[in-house]
């Protein structure tokens, strides 16, 4: 027996197909639905149609916040609507609605930054799966100390359930981290060998560098690096010198100041006028 063989069944099948797919339905709606004081039958049904798409798109937005950020809301919503039309929910839960989105995006042509978009989609799917997995017990490394050496080769390791392994073509986790999780960040942005680069530093290192840039002597500057260890400070200077961040170092009494100058040469861009035109 067809499930829509009853009157109730046929009403439900018709209504669901309109809610999902739309189309010309004014006559059927007028026969099936009473008008209200303010709305025609089809307008009343359209309330459900509008909410259907919105609800599912919102569920996908919640699972793929990085993709929303990357693609922009309009493009993401458009893709989400197409995806939902192709893969409607068949579950009592919305949690797994987006499970096939990475696979779906792999088939969409004309995506901006397609390789990166797909990597990010796979990462966000893995995150939702890991979020919902069963909690496992955690083995301790101390267990290994009790195992005789001759039995090590036969050990088998079973990972926790809430874990997935991903090989990606892009470091999508950096984007997701940066775009979605606010974090106080201190950067030295600089140029080296004509390439622009940046170096992320701690707050004490930043304070110290700021003091140096203001022209303060080393002892003053180091005081700004609140409670940093000497070895740490040496490490920072090693990095800064190796990245070529200082053009000169001047001693307080400069008898031999010129000897300490480093990186004084300035290369110049070849001017456009120097290029012979065609």
């Amino acid at each position, binding site marked *: 027996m067809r499930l829509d063989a009853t009157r109730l069944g046929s009403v439900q099948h018709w209504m669901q197909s309109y*809610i999902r797919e739309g189309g010309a339905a004014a006559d059927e709606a007028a026969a099936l639905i009473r008008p209200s004081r303010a709305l025609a039958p089809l307008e009343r049904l359209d309330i459900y149609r509008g909410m259907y798409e919105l609800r599912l798109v919102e569920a996908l937005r919640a699972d793929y916040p990085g993709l929303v950020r990357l693609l922009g809301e309009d493009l993401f919503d458009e893709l989400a609507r197409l995806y939902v039309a192709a893969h409607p929910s068949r579950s009592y839960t919305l949690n797994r609605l987006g499970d096939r989105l990475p696979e779906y995006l792999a088939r969409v042509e004309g995506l901006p930054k397609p390789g990166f978009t797909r990597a990010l989609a796979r990462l966000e799917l893995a995150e939702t799966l890991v979020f919902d997995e069963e909690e496992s017990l955690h083995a301790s490394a101390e267990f290994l100390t009790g195992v005789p050496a001759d039995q090590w080769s036969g050990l088998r390791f079973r990972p926790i359930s809430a874990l997935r392994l991903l090989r990606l073509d892009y470091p999508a986790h950096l984007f997701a981290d940066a775009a979605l999780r606010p974090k106080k960040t201190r950067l030295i942005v600089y140029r080296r060998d004509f390439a622009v680069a940046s170096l992320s530093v701690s707050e004490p290192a930043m304070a110290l560098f700021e003091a140096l840039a203001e022209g303060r002597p080393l002892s003053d500057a180091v005081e700004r690096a609140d409670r940093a260890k000497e070895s740490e400070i040496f490490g920072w200077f090693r990095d800064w010198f190796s990245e070529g961040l200082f053009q000169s170092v001047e001693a307080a009494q400069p008898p031999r100041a010129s000897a300490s100058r480093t990186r004084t040469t300035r290369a110049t861009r070849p001017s456009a006028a120097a290029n012979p035109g065609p």
Partner: protein
Amino acid sequence: MANRWNLPDLGFGAGLRTVHFQHILAEWPAVDWFEILSENFLDTGGRPAYVLDLTAERYPVAMHGVSLSVGSTDPVNFEYLRKLKALAGRTKARWISDHLCWTGVAGINTHDLLPMPYTDESLRHVAERVRTISDYLERPLFLENPSTYLEFAESTWTEWDFLAELTGLSGCGLLLDVNNVYVSSFNHGFDPFEYVDRIPVDRVVQIHLAGHTHKGTHILDTHSDHVVDPVWELYRRVYQRMGGIATLLEWDDSIPSFDTVHAEALKARWYRTMPQQEARSAA
């Protein structure tokens, strides 16, 4: 005035929502009870499950679902019921509720509470499914009146008479959503007081209160705001007629702090105790 199952008036509760997890774990607020959205906890073993277990140790919990689809002409989903039953056992749920609606056919879930035609055919169909479901769950099922945005031309029952008849035919109880009564009364032009006056007193174990969004031509049940005064007046009427019934404030969109949600729920206490005349002059 007790319901026929002698289920208790749990007091004034709030929904257990993700955005409040941190606050709840840190403060264990003095709320009387929690309602959980069943589907949010059926398939997760992570933080939601952890928070739920701790919550269920400390507060009475009732389960409220949105995917039962009791009015659908699709087969009953016993896998879903199996999980519901297990969750009810784990949380010692005081009762399980869902809505008088259907959510999809042909294996699809629209995740919306779609309206039923109120016909004899629907009545028989839903009553039979309620019996099947409560037999499986080994407990009564409580159905909520949904907010609806359309009415079927073929309906021969009012919603309140349909619900009253259904309780007798199927043995189910009711979760009376006072805001939904108000929303539907505006959308369809009926008297909300007549509705609540016709609901069988001994079948109601829980009340929902919520805010909504007025669109001019119709009202949407958005759970995104404070409860409006006319809904409080309906609540007062229900209390005067039915006595104290476990009351829950639903706030699911633009969710404010837990304290704000809880304070809104506690307004219900005031509406229970304040006679109408005094309330009018105090307002």
